[in-house]
């Protein structure tokens, strides 16, 4: 990013391994939007770290050229916290599915949000468990007949927007992989945001979710930007967040400015831990001061 005139290679983040996603899977949309934005914004693979959990969507890092952690199911965010806090100079992107993030990982989602950890969290929400072949997910709609719900889902789904707002996230948005241009815009703004930026990405599973299809969404989505939404007003954001079914808002629901965790942490606020010397002596800590505490 130092040389502003550097020629941008838009494919810089495109990996050599072909995704094994189904043709038409929504996740392709986020992959291409994200790799493009990363390149456009001048990031480089060696200082970008993409972290995921487990699921179809979580294979995402493998299809890029950046550093990555394909973590355990549901644990992408804590891994991201470890990474970001010891090396705040990395651009850390966290990706995964609805099962991964809203199901098994819900607790970490809440805590990463409230801590305002400076990562971007992109959830490919297909309202289904894809990789395990079509069970209902915590975001599956009431009544959805899936492999495990012969009479239809009877648990109310997670509302990711409301949940993120309730958890105190400082950037809360929703995108749709059927509109990659708009999505790319959101991803860029999320990267630009300092702190926890979260996008619920509606990403149809063409194989197992025959209910929430591209068409289903196309009939319902609209842009918050088109309706004078004030994204600094959390109350308004929460009310918009209740919308689903008839109309589904896309865009930034809420954004606010506050310190990110690495900016307040007593250690990483003024140094990059990974670059610091090791041990007492190299850090110029006198033995006397260490031992004195124990006398």
């Amino acid at each position, binding site marked *: 990013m130092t040389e502003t005139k550097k020629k941008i290679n838009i494919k810089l983040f495109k990996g050599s391994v072909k995704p094994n996603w189904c043709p038409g899977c929504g996740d392709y949309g986020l992959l291409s939007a994200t790799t493009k934005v990363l390149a456009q914004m001048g990031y480089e693979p060696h200082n970008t770290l993409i972290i995921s959990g487990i699921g179809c969507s979580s294979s995402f890092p493998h299809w890029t050229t950046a550093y*990555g952690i394909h973590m355990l199911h549901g*644990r992408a965010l804590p891994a991201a916290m470890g990474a970001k806090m010891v090396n705040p100079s990395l651009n850390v992107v966290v990706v995964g599915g609805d099962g991964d993030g809203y199901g098994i990982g819900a607790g970490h989602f809440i805590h990463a949000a409230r801590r305002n950890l400076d990562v971007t969290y992109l959830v490919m929400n297909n309202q289904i468990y894809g990789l395990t072949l079509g069970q209902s997910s915590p975001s599956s709609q009431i009544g959805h007949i899936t492999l495990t719900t012969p009479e239809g889902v009877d648990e109310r789904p997670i509302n990711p927007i409301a949940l993120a707002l309730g958890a105190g996230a400082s950037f809360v948005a929703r995108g749709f992989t059927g509109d990659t241009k708009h999505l790319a815009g959101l991803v860029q703004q999320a990267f630009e945001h300092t702190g926890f930026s979260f996008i619920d990405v509606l990403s149809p599973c063409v194989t197992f979710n025959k209910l929430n299809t591209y068409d289903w969404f196309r009939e319902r989505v609209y842009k918050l930007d088109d309706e004078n939404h004030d994204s600094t007003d959390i109350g308004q954001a929460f009310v918009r967040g209740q919308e689903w079914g008839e109309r589904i808002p896309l865009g930034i629901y809420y954004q606010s400015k506050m310190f990110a965790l690495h900016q307040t942490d007593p*250690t990483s606020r003024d140094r990059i831990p990974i670059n610091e010397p090791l041990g*007492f002596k190299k850090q110029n800590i006198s033995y006397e001061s260490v031992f004195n505490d124990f006398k």
Partner: protein
Amino acid sequence: MTIRVIWITLTYLSDDTKSSSLIRYAIRIGGVAGDGLQSTGSLLQKYFNRLGYYVVGHPGTQSTIRGGHVWQHVEISSQEIFSFDRPLNFLIALSEETLEVHLRDMKENSYVLINADKVKIEKFHQELIQRKIKVLSFPLSKLSREIDVKRAVLANTIAIGALITLLGIPMEGYIDTLRKRFGGREKLLDMNLKALDLGKTYLRENYLDAFVSVTPATLEGMKAIVISGNEMIALGATASGLKFLAQYPITPASSILTYLSNKASRYGIVVRQAEDELAAITMCIGAAYTGVRVMTASSGPGISLMSEAFGYAGMTETPIVIVDSMRAGPSTGIPTKMEQADLYSIMFMSHGEAPRAILAPRSIKEAFDVTVKAFNIADKYQLPVVILSDFALSEQTASIDEFELDVEINRGKIWTKATDEHPKYKRYELTEDGISPRAFPGTKDAEYILVGAEHDEDSHSLSGNRAGLPESWDLREKMFKKRFRKMELLRDEMDGPELYGVKNADYTVLCWGSTQGAVREAIDGLNQENSTSWNMLSFVDLFPFPFEKFLPFIKNIKTSIMFEVNYTGQLENLIHHHTDWKPTHSIRPLHGETPTPSSITLEITELLNQEENQ
């Protein structure tokens, strides 16, 4: 009520009956949670350390914040000591329950100082007289109210004033200790000084002839520190270059988090309290991948929660150090009691088979070196290393001479740019020793994806489109062998057991981890009192078990006793697994209390008596 005794007072453990001056002196304060015993115990230990005595301390805590029954043990000696012991020379009873619980531990000619305002002594009279225990009856509550009505903890200081006076040792040191403790808070300091004085005066006025002679201190004052096992591990980690600690509080591992939270900025460590242990260990994995040395600490319940991620660290060859401060289990168990029952659960933690190392420090002193070794092993062999501590080791305190804080740091194979040996970066390059180079984000041309699935040399997953293809059959075998090749290499680096005592003793006691000090003292006692000879083999490096270093000892072992605090005989099983060797006897105390020289001696004596009677 039949009094169940799980230890005995053996005369050889101290010399009080032999000379008029005591070499070793054991003090205990008992009361209810909230009485400030740990703080008083800590001050007392620092004071004795300042005088130049060897010091050990042991906390008797409960999962209770107020009330209940808790105690703090402080023991001093003019000769080096390796364990606290149950028998007491001086007991401060702030509650009646203290007498009910600890009277059995009192030696002949010992003193008990009671808070007469709270303790009714009548029902113990008979026994006290019979056992020649002298009572110092202080109206501690009343006296402390005289100084400040709201500070009941001043009672402790009054009792300490009396104790110091009884021992006829200088009071100044304690005043200095208090001064350091209370820093600028003059009012508090003042009240405590008054309390000290009151204790002294009250003793002198009411118990004119009460006096105990302890042999003078032998060390140079203020040269040693008084430190707990957990703090020692924290120092070892910092010395090793720790940059990230993520931990969730749990007894008895919490004090690592507390200590390092308070030093974080100064010691350059990012310290974060995680939302749970699953997060703690996965945060560590994220930070370790990024390139720093990391640690987490917990106890049973939290360690169990780390199971899945532990296997991930083994599979991805990510170096992490985990402190398991064992407490009495299973499940919630008894959080404030020690046990050595996590060895096997950690050897086999997480599904499938993945590499790991386990080290169990045998003393507070050794905890520093073991921690340094743990970090070096983690980096060299790229695997999770568990430091097995326990409630006793973690929470006990001892005086230790100042030591070198600068240690050798070996970060293992790291790739930063193309070399002749490694022109192209491959995270899991199939090398002869099984160890492949690591590379960290920020490094160009080394970008790779860490993955818990089986993988090829480039860290590409074999679980998706390559699962079941013939190329994967081979790769899986090779990767498995590579991971376990490291274990065999590491086994060579593991220290074998240490022999204490004569080589060809009649009896050998084997032990591991924190019980070593107490076993050692029991051995000393047995050697002194018996016509038989005794030695000890103690283990610190447990997994991969260095059985070849144990084999040479076998031929010299006559009758052997394996001593460990668990039900199933875990180290015994591990030794047997590798060597087919089994000890003659096993002692596995289950009562929950920390083994002491006298409890071990009792158990050994009972065992041998049983044998004889058969």
